[in-house]
């Protein structure tokens, strides 16, 4: 209530402060300008000069009635509006907080992604370097092995060719020798070779003699060991 009266007083003071100069100015203009005497009708009933005091009173009553009648709805409206704005502010704050949290989360994620990308790039580079080294080493090893294999193949082929050549030369030489023998050998030569073969057989000691000699040798060896 005190608050209301204080507000009402302030309103009246405002009205007086605003309207008084206007009333004085209007009265002055109505009486012929600056040179005329200023006369303000405050309370009298005059058809020429309206009573300004009563107007003030009417105005104050009007204002009071206006305030009295519209105070609750306006207040309720302002309170509702206040709550709506507050809710809106709260909602916006919550949305802001959520957005900020999302923003922070997203920023963290982006930072993590950046870090991960960086790590990935570093890992890829490292793996690439390792793989490059491995491929180079493997290629070197493979080339060395291939070179050794080729050397072995060349050596084997050379050996095989040498053997084939020797074999071919030997076969050709034997073929020539056989052809020469067939062409030049006579029956007399063949008979002589048979005689020589018989002589060789005659030179071979008999199996019985050989067995006796072997037994004698064995006995000597055994006796010597004793």
């Amino acid at each position: 209530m005190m608050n209301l009266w204080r507000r009402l007083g302030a309103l009246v003071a405002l009205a007086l402060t605003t309207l008084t100069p206007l009333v004085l100015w209007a009265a002055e203009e109505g009486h012929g300008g600056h040179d005329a005497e200023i006369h303000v009708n405050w309370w009298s009933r005059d058809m020429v000069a309206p009573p300004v005091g009563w107007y003030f009173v009417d105005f104050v009553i009007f204002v009071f009635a206006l305030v009295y009648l519209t105070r609750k709805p306006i207040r309720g409206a302002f309170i509702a509006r206040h709550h709506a704005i507050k809710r809106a502010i709260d909602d916006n704050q919550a949305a802001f907080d959520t957005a900020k949290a999302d923003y922070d989360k997203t920023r963290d994620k982006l930072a993590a992604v950046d870090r991960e990308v960086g790590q990935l790039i570093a890992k890829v580079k490292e793996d690439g370097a390792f793989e490059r080294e491995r491929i180079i080493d493997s290629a070197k090893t493979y080339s060395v092995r291939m070179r050794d294999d080729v050397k072995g193949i060349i050596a084997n082929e050379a050996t095989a060719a040498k053997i084939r050549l020797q074999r071919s030369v030997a076969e050709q030489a034997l073929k020539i020798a056989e052809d020469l023998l067939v062409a030049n050998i006579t029956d007399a030569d063949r008979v002589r070779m048979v005689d020589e073969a018989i002589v060789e057989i005659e030179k071979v000691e008999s199996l019985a003699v050989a067995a006796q000699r072997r037994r004698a040798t064995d006995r000597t060896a055994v006796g010597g060991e004793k």
Partner: protein
Amino acid sequence: MSAIARRYARAAVEVADQKGGIAAIEALFAGLASFRAAFKQNTDLREVLRNPVLREQRPGALEAVMKKLGVSAEAAKLINLLAARERLAILDDVVAETEVLADERMGRVRAYVTTAVPLGDVQAQRLARALEKRFGQPVALSIKIDPSILGGLVCQVRDVTMDSSLRNQLESLRERLLA
């Protein structure tokens, strides 16, 4: 060598041994060997002995051939028996088994000699004596002429082979060259 050929050969050798001893066995082997040679060389004889259509002419032809070859009675009986039973396909085995059995009965070993030229009598006797000295028992020579050995001789007795042929020397030379 088939078991059938072995049975025929053993039976024939035993019969010959009972009737004439070693000489009959020798005659049996000689007769079989000569008939085998004629059988291999004479196409008409093979035709007569193998063609069933000519079965009627078979005894007469056989008798004529064996009379001409002078085979012994035991050999003739064995050949007739083989022909009658259509067993002439095993004649080679029968002759080989008869040869083995004859050698066993006579206590000798068989030397299979291959030469490029025919051996003279003196050479054959020298070779037989040398082999008898080597193996300590009588040796019978089976000589085959094979010009492909070029010269020298190849002599196989039991599981011993003495090869002094020119072909063998060439082969030895080839082995040394290729080694």
